[in-house]
């Protein structure tokens, strides 16, 4: 069955379970990034993602999309950006399923210049306003607001995944 379709043999009257994922395709501009932010917040709340994690994920999404729009080049601006939200039980990467926890991840796929943010050295935060530069804060925010980051470049597209975990207990 294709992703996102409901099973046809669901008992009548039973509320359909939400699939564990949601997808959206947007254009590469600020107004579309805002639409994506609203979409993400709505989809997360429908899946009972806690508010604190919703806020972290929407901030990360805004910053990732800003990077694509500003630094992705002409191919990023002319091709659609695909978004995938996946929500499920928390996963401990070393030990598998982690009982009593949840996680949500967002994968942003774009056709812009290949860029792996995991290779960018961490920015040293300035001690004074005079030392502060106005740039480079987006990646700082992505790193601080996500619990994990994954990147791959495949079929000419960047695929960046960021996620947040929470404890259900």
């Amino acid at each position, binding site marked *: 069955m294709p992703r996102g379709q409901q099973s046809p043999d669901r008992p009548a009257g039973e509320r359909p379970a939400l699939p564990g994922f949601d997808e959206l395709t947007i254009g590469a501009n600020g107004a579309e990034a805002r639409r994506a*932010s609203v979409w993400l917040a709505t989809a997360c709340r429908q899946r009972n993602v806690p508010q604190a994690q919703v806020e972290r994920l*929407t901030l990360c999404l*805004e910053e990732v999309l800003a990077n694509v729009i500003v630094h992705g080049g002409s191919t990023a601006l002319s091709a659609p950006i695909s978004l995938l939200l996946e929500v499920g039980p928390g996963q401990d990467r070393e030990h598998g399923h982690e009982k009593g926890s949840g996680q949500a991840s967002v994968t942003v796929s774009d056709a812009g210049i290949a860029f792996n943010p995991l290779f960018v050295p961490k920015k040293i*935060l*300035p001690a004074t*306003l005079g030392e*502060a530069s106005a740039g480079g804060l987006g990646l700082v*925010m992505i790193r601080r607001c996500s619990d994990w980051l994954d990147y791959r470049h495949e079929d000419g597209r960047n695929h960046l995944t960021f996620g947040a975990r929470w404890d259900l207990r």
Partner: protein
Amino acid sequence: MSISYDDIGDKLRRIVISGRLDMPGTDSVASTLGELVAAPKKGVVVDLSSVQFLASIGIRALITSAKAVQQRGGKMVLVVTGGSSVLMSLEATGVDQLIPVFRNAADAERAAVA
């Protein structure tokens, strides 16, 4: 998205921003913010308690403004609701350590002109 201001005496200007300081929101207020902080007031309070979302582009505008105020010998401070996503953005980027942040307007106004 809106931005407004009122002057409190000769020394203090209070700027109130509301809405989302994401890409479109910041684009719509950044130049006005720059003009408002250029006024020869000693203290500038930027009230963000009605801002629902603060992205790095908005933080960039705040840093630029705070530097401009500092360079003319003044001081810019922020009013932010405790526990809000705006405060989270400022803390995540360390900007709460560079631009003073207050939970209420009265404290902010005192600090801006101190």
